[in-house]
């Protein structure tokens, strides 16, 4: 992307198009990726609760919330979701990321 010169920037460095953080895809910072297994998942939502990047996607199925995957655009691979997923279930495990 060609960066703007000083004559093209808005005065006062304001950003007119918001929210901007949605467009700033930070998932590429990841070195490990969480992999989620829908067949093991009990929908306890611990991963959703603990994910610091709001990267656990919930969807409504028959009026009930269900985990439906991981948003890799923002997931930074911290592994918290895999850590908090109950040990007997282990519906999330971490793998090495290859971009």
């Amino acid at each position, binding site marked *: 992307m060609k960066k703007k010169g*000083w004559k093209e*920037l808005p*005065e*006062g*460095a*304001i*950003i*007119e198009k*918001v*929210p901007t953080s949605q467009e700033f895809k930070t998932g590429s910072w990841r070195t490990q990726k969480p992999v989620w297994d829908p067949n093991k998942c009990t929908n306890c939502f611990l991963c959703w609760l603990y994910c610091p990047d709001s990267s656990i996607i919930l969807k409504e199925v028959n009026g009930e919330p269900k985990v439906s995957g991981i948003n890799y655009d923002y997931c930074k691979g911290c592994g918290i979701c895999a850590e908090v997923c109950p040990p007997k279930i282990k519906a999330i495990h971490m793998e090495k990321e290859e971009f």
Partner: protein
Amino acid sequence: MSETLKVKQALTGNEAFAFAMKQINPDVVAAYPITPATEIVQIFSKYVADGEVDTEFVAVESEHSAMSACIGAATAGARVMTGTSSQGLALMHEVLYIASALRLPIVLAEVNRALSAPINIHCDHSDTMGSRDSGWIQIYCENANEGYHSLIQAVKIAETINLPVMVTLDGFIISHGMEVVETLETDVVRQYLGKRKPLYNVLDYENPIMVGPLDLTDYYFEHKRQQIEAMKKAKDVIEEVITDYNKRFGFDFPVFAEAYRMEDAEYAILSMSSAAGTMKEAVDVMREKGEKVGLVRLKVFRPFPYEVLQEFFKNVKAIGVMDRSDSVSTMGGPVFNEVRSALYDLDTRPRIMNFVFGLGGRDFPLSDALYIVNRVKELKEGKTLDFVEYVGVRE
């Protein structure tokens, strides 16, 4: 029409500032009192309590908060003013940069006072000189009358170029001294200024924006370059506003600097603020003796009007630059350094020296003013002198 609109009043510098603020009727004033500027806030808060202004007055617990509140209000499109002095301005220092970089036209009524330590409540210019690189326009007034009118002009200047402006008066000498101020009528001031047209409004929920983003290595430089350009353009704006104001209301205020008996001057003094009054007297005394000496009173220090000074000084042989603060650089005061730099490119460069005087409110009598003129005369005649002298200090 202009004559009938003027009202003569006996006011101190602080009263003149507060009265101008009342007529301006800003949307928001956030301020904290500090000697010798206390009265500005005190008198203004009485106007608020008496319902003479519509202003939202924010009584804060420090100057850092005062400027922060001003910034918040200004981003929401409000016309915002504050007043301070010395340590108060120093405490605002960090946020001054934010106001200018966000291009907020905040107007600050400043009363010049020395910085601690030792604690001193009297006049010198160390406070505003400490903020000279903060991106604020700086206007130094000679007296209360000029302070009153400059504060009104400052609102126009600030809102035209979207940069903050501080207008200064010398502590106690002007802030507490009473003089005749020729004021405009309130309606005239309000009509002249109209409503502020903000660049943006952070409270506009229909059109959300983000103010004060992270810039890092990839855009910070571009935004600074843009701010520098605004400061360059501010010169035209200052000239337009003051010229138009003079024409509209029948005044004769100088734009960037005032030339006093400079027509055929062979040597000259450059002074700022109230000391220029004493200097004019010294120039008159010397002129009576047939000495071709003149005075330039520098009024706008930011943006620095180097072109104007080059023009004034192109034919003089020697100049004495007066500083009411010292940059403790062992190279003289801030005014001296900039004036000397401005004159470096002249075809025939005048000899130039610096006089640091009046620190911490030290009296500046006519005898000292005459001493300075005589020293510059010696410089003109070829004598070798130290490039900085400290006038009025005990050995």
